C-alpha cells in the first residue's frame, strides 16, 4: 500500500512533524550545552528524532513525547561519550548556601554571555540535570525517574550546578571547592 494513502502513516507523519516543530529547539539547546559543539548537537538531535521515528508506535501517550525525546537524547549523548555519569555529589553546607546572600546578582547586571561562559565551565554531571530543569521544565522527581535515581540525588546535583554557575560567574570558584560537612 502506498504510504501516502495510509491513514495511520499520515497520522504518524503529523505526529512526528509536530514533535519536531515543538521540541527540536529545546533538544538542540540541551545537546549543545552538553557537547559544546553545534554540529555535534545537531547530529545528536537528528539521531534522536530518527530513533523516535522508528519507535513511534511505542509512544502510547503523545503527551509524554517531550520526556521521551529528552530520554532518547540523553542516552544518545551518553552513548557518544561512552559512559553514563553517576558522580554523586553531597549536600551543600550552610556556609556555601549563605554565599547567595553575599552576592547581588541583579538580573540586569548579569551579562548573558558571561553566564553562558560559566555554563560551559560547569561539569556536565551537574549541568545535565540543571538543563533538564531549565530547558525541559522537568521536576527533580521526573529527572530522577529519567536517570533511574532518587529525586534527592538530582536535587543535590542541580543545587550544586546553580552554586557552581553562580560562583564561576562571580569568579569565585573557591566557594564551590569547600569541603562538605557531614
Amino acid at each position: 500500500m502506498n504510504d501516502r494513502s495510509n491513514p495511520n502513516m499520515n497520522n504518524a507523519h503529523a505526529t512526528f512533524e509536530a514533535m519536531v516543530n515543538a521540541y527540536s529547539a529545546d533538544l538542540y539547546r540541551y545537546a549543545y550545552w552538553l557537547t559544546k559543539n553545534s554540529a555535534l548537537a545537531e547530529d545528536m538531535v537528528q539521531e534522536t528524532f530518527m530513533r523516535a521515528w522508528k519507535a513511534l508506535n511505542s509512544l502510547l501517550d503523545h503527551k509524554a513525547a517531550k520526556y521521551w525525546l529528552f530520554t532518547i537524547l540523553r542516552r544518545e549523548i551518553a552513548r557518544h561519550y561512552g559512559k553514563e555519569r553517576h558522580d554523586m555529589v553531597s549536600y551543600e553546607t550552610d556556609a556555601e548556601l549563605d554565599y547567595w546572600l553575599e552576592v547581588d546578582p541583579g538580573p540586569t547586571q548579569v551579562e548573558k554571555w558571561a553566564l553562558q561562559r560559566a555554563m560551559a565551565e560547569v561539569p556536565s554531571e551537574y549541568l545535565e540535570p540543571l538543563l533538564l530543569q531549565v530547558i525541559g521544565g522537568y521536576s527533580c522527581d521526573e529527572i530522577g525517574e529519567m536517570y533511574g535515581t532518587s529525586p534527592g540525588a538530582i536535587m543535590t546535583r542541580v543545587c550544586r550546578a546553580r552554586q557552581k554557575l553562580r560562583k564561576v560567574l562571580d569568579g569565585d570558584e573557591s566557594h564551590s571547592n569547600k569541603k562538605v560537612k557531614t
Partner: protein
Amino acid sequence: MNCLEFRRQLLGEPASKSSELAAHRLQCPACSQFANKVQAFEVCIKEAAHLQVPESLAPRILLQQRMAQRRQSFWRRGMWAMAATIVLTVGLTLRVFLTPVLGLEASVIAHVENELKHLHAHDNVSLAEVNQQMQKYGVQLTQAVATVNFANPCPMRKARGFHLVFQGESGPVTVLIMPKDYIDSRLTTADPHFQAVILPTKNGSMAIVAENATDLAQMETRLASALQFQS
C-alpha cells in the same frame, strides 16, 4: 522546615510550588531574600540557556525522516518482491518435483481435460494450413477427414507435438501427435467422459480422444488411411 532545608530545596527546584517552601518564605525574611536572588538568577540562567537554534534544524530532521522512510519503503517493497520470487521459485520447483508422472494412457485424457477450451474451438483450419504446421513434426494429412476446429503445436510428455481437434459425427475428437513417446502396440483407455486409443507411429505415438466409441472408431479408421508419418 529550617532555613538550610529551605535553601537546599529552593536551589534544587526554584520553580517548586511546595506549600512548605511558601510557608517558610513568608515567615523568614532572610530566606525570602535568598529566594528572590535565586529566582532572579534562574531567569538569567534560562535566558543564557536559550540559545539561537539553527533555522535549518527542523527542516533537516523532517527531510532525513522522509528519506529514511523512502529507503524503508523501498526495502519493504524489495523484500516483498524477493519473498514473492522465492515463493514462486519454490512453488514451481515443488510442482516439477511433486507432480506425479502420469502414464501415457492417463496423460492423453488429462491433456484433453486440461485444455477443454480447444474442444469448443471453431477455427475451421484448412488442410493446407494443417499440413504446413504439422510438417515440422513429420506428419501429413493426405486428405480431409473432417472439419479441423483447432490445430496447434503443443507440449506433450516427451517432446513438443501437435494438437488437433476434428469435428466428429456427434462431438469433437482430439488427436495428439506425440513425438518420441514410443509404444509397442495399440493402447486403449477411458474415463467417465472420454475414451481414447493410442497408436504407435514412426516417430512416437498418436492419441485419439473422443466422447464416445463411435466417433473414436470412425476417426481411427479415417486417420489410418489419411495420416502419413515421416521418420
